[in-house]
């Protein structure tokens, strides 16, 4: 009977119910979109790092694995030095530089050594880096920025000529000559990291051991192990950002649900008075209000999940390079619990007001 009452309550005022569900869904969608963006960003970074095809990553002294997406603290002399190590067949140094307010970076590469290690880019249009001011864009960035082959584009305050558009999957979404980039950022002869390819991937552990002994203090990672570092917890800034927005979403969801339930209870003052005149206990009234909040929470969760597919489509269409969004199924129950928990918490205050209401006043309510 309680379920029947709850169902009749939510179906009797479809517009109010729809609005409440949409407000809760908005909170769920924000959480899922944010989490999806973080996972999408990390997943995309991991894939593009893997796409290089190296076996080992060599990092500057004092750096952590994903701590720096910016700057060039490593001398490019290491590139030739490391190439002489046993089992090493190819090395290439890459300089990274953030290009704006997002996490987008530009990769400075030495095209010859990079191609030897990683294989050639898959060109959709144009050709490789031939002149110092040439730039290659991957398809995602070209789509996102509406850049065309042959066009001049401004990146880090420099005009670049779009020489080629390539398939995504390696390093950043933009590639220029490492020499030009180093000159621009005032750090000639420096790189951010060095990729190493071995004669046989089975020698990875052996080579890492050798390099760690010879180059003390320089972090050396196998590309396979690097995968495990691509999590939110590994990047303090990303974790702080994610936590902040998550807490904001939860608070927003709670306030929205509390207001929505407050309005719902206010609208039903007279009905609560009727139930009380029939002998309904405080527990009965609050059970109905909480069950209704729970139902709205579940409805909002389902709609929020559906809407997160919409935001994924939107982000992956409009900003595939900067803000790729993944669908993170593991977060569905978490977002659902946050939304439904928020709905229940939000309903407690108006529910408590409702059960304390004088039945005579409630019956007189118009």
């Amino acid at each position, binding site marked *: *009977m309680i379920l*029947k*009452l709850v169902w*009749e*309550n939510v*179906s*009797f*005022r479809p517009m109010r119910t729809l609005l409440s569900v949409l407000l809760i869904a908005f909170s769920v969608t924000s959480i899922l979109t944010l989490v999806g963006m973080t996972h999408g960003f990390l997943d995309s970074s991991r894939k593009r790092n893997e796409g290089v095809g190296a076996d080992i990553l060599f990092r500057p002294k004092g750096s952590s694995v994903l701590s720096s997406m910016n700057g060039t603290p490593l001398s490019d002399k290491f590139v030739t030095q490391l190439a002489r190590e046993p089992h090493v067949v190819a090395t290439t140094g890459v300089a990274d530089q953030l290009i704006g307010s997002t996490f987008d970076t530009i990769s400075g590469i030495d095209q010859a050594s990079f191609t030897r290690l990683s294989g050639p880019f898959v060109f959709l249009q144009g050709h490789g880096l031939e002149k110092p001011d040439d730039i290659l864009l991957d398809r995602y960035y070209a789509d996102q920025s509406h850049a065309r082959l042959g066009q001049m584009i401004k990146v880090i305050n420099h005009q670049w000529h779009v020489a080629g558009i390539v398939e995504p999957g390696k390093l950043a979404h933009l590639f220029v000559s490492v020499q030009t980039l180093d000159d621009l950022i005032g750090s000639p002869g420096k790189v951010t990291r060095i990729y190493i390819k071995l004669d046989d991937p089975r020698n990875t552990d052996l080579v890492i051991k050798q390099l760690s002994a010879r180059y003390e203090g320089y972090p050396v990672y196998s590309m396979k192990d690097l995968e495990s570092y691509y999590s939110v917890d590994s990047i303090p800034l990303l974790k702080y950002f994610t936590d902040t927005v998550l807490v904001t979403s939860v608070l927003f969801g709670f306030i929205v649900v509390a207001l929505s339930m407050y309005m719902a209870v206010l609208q039903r003052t*007279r*009905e609560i*008075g*009727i*139930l*009380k*005149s*029939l*002998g*309904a*206990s*405080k527990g*009965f009234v609050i059970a109905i209000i909480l069950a209704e909040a729970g139902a709205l929470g579940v409805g909002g969760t389902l709609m929020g999940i559906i809407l997160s597919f919409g935001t994924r489509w939107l982000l992956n269409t409009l900003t595939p390079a900067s803000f790729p969004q993944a669908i993170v199924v593991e977060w569905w129950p978490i977002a659902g619990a946050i939304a439904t928990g928020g709905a229940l918490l939000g309903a407690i205050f108006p529910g408590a007001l409702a059960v304390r209401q*004088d*039945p*005579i006043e409630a*019956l007189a309510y118009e």
Partner: protein
Amino acid sequence: MNNDVIIHVRALRKIYRTGHVDVAALRGVDLDVPRGEFLSIVGPSGSGKSTLFHIIGGLTQPTEGEIRVAGHDLSAAGDSGRTELRRRYVSFVFQKFNLLPNLTARDNIRTALFIAGLPTQFDNAFHDTLDLLGIQGRLDHKPSEMSGGEQQRVALARALATKPTILLADEPTGNLDSRNSLAVLNLLRDLNARLGQTILMITHNAEAAAFGHRILHMSDGKIVDDAGIGL
């Protein structure tokens, strides 16, 4: 107190505080209602009849005095005690019907049964009551799909479904035309005569009041006249 007295009221006072001003709604009411009586209470607005009705029905507490309803001492009862009284012993019929707008007539009645802890399926005796009320064919309609007279008969059915010891009717014909008013009053009298249902009815209408066994006149928070009619 006589065992046949179902409502026993002595020196009942109710004072409402509005801001810093105390307003006395009841100023010492004495009343005994025997089981099976159909009692009409009349009086002008502000005479205290609704307050008396609300206290007898357990909707509000008295400020002072003694009151026993269906064996329950309401002078000392808390919220849960008064809720229990409403759930099991007292039913209301209001001028504004007070049906739950989102439920059908059937579900309005079933809700009352559910709250009272009774089976929500209608038994044969209750089907006879529905026949008597003439609403068998309207059970699957919502209040907005029914006339005022039909809504009041559904409210009456809901009130009777839990087989209350006392039926409290507050201006039950106040929102009805003369034909429907007469039908509802005849039903109340019929229920009282056939089932021995104790009924307290508040009304402004002298003709309606005459359907009771006894008429109480209230004024300024007191009973000023107690006239037996049919008894």
